[in-house]
């Protein structure tokens, strides 16, 4: 098998227009389908489309906020404490999301459970902060965070929808047939299998259109 993970030319940052910065995270460098970042929540919370959406938005929020802050404070921070500083910043936003969700969306909070604190270790977040936020202006960082975050959300919603449709014959909680779906898709194996096929399909499509 070729190395499982794509090359790092994905991180190429040449002079890009703002639009490019925003756009590439959506599809071309999609965090999930292309870069395979933060796979745990991708698999863990996508038993329904709603959960996927919630998790995606939560991550996007953290991503954007931490990117902004990082790009704002980047010049105050000496290189050697960069990482701990970033961790503190990100973890703070994660905690904020955690608290706010618990307070205002208790249902969703319960569903996402463990995976909210785990946003902290999502490589995507720290990665963007480190690779992009720390080198660019806040505006660009926001665009980048938004693009990457929405790409992440898109993937989660896509996978969530696929699993929900197959697994419980409903979408966003709306049941379209009163029958049981293919149960396995809402369970653990279904997550892997659905994502596996999804990535395979995307690979093939990418090849076809490239």
């Amino acid at each position, binding site marked *: 098998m070729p190395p499982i993970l794509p090359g790092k030319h994905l991180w190429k940052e040449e002079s890009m227009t703002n639009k490019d910065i925003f756009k590439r995270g959506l599809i071309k460098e999609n965090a999930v389908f292309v870069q395979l970042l933060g796979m745990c929540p991708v698999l863990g919370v996508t038993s329904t489309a709603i959960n996927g959406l919630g998790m995606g938005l939560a991550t996007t929020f953290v991503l954007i906020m931490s990117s902004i802050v990082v790009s704002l404070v980047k010049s105050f921070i000496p290189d050697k404490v960069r990482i701990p500083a970033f961790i503190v910043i990100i973890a703070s936003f994660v905690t*904020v999301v955690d*608290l706010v969700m618990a307070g205002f969306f208790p249902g969703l909070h319960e569903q996402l459970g463990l995976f909210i604190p785990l946003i902290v270790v999502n490589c995507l977040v720290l990665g963007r902060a480190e690779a992009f936020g720390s080198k660019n202006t806040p505006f660009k960082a926001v665009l980048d965070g938004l693009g990457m975050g929405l790409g992440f959300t898109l993937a989660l919603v896509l996978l969530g929808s696929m699993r929900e449709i197959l697994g419980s014959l409903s979408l966003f909680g709306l049941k379209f047939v009163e029958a049981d779906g293919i149960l396995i898709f809402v369970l653990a194996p279904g997550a892997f299998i659905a994502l596996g096929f999804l990535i395979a399909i995307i690979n093939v499509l990418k090849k076809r259109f490239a």
Partner: protein
Amino acid sequence: MAKKESTFFNMVFSLSVITLVASAALGYVYEFTKEPIAAAQLAKKVRAISVVVPEYNNNPVEDMYLAAIPGSNDSLEIYPAYQNGELVAAAVRSFSPKGYSGNVWLMVGFIPDGSIFDISVLEHKETPGLGTKMADESFKAQFRNKNPQNFNLKVKKDGGDVDALTGATITSRAFGDAAYTAWKTFMEGGKHD
């Protein structure tokens, strides 16, 4: 602005500032969300209680008391509901460990003679699409207005009166078990007026 040198002072200083700001902000957010979180948790409980008991006008959460499960060291939370000072029902937060995976938590409402008013499902880890059907109306309906005195809470397979969920006998058993524990605790377990 030029990048700060990594001198010791700079490092300590910048990091202190960041943690300071972060912690202050967090503290603030915490204070800010403390109440909504508590409220959300309370609301959840109240909602769960209110669906399983008839109308009341006290605060059952405040009046909650613990009652020992007969034959066990554990105890259950009982939320009495009063209408104008008269006990109309009590909601018992009960559980059974016999679920398909993990505990099944129910809120069971009893009117004073021990008949079930209604049941709601609080927490569980049953399989979506199978065990989760215990929250369906069609399943719960069979318990309403039944008194476990003469309604055996076991599933029919085990010689009881409960129609099990198809394919989820285990969950159904756990459901019955939790309801029975609630009933026993409500009837025998310590204080109620």
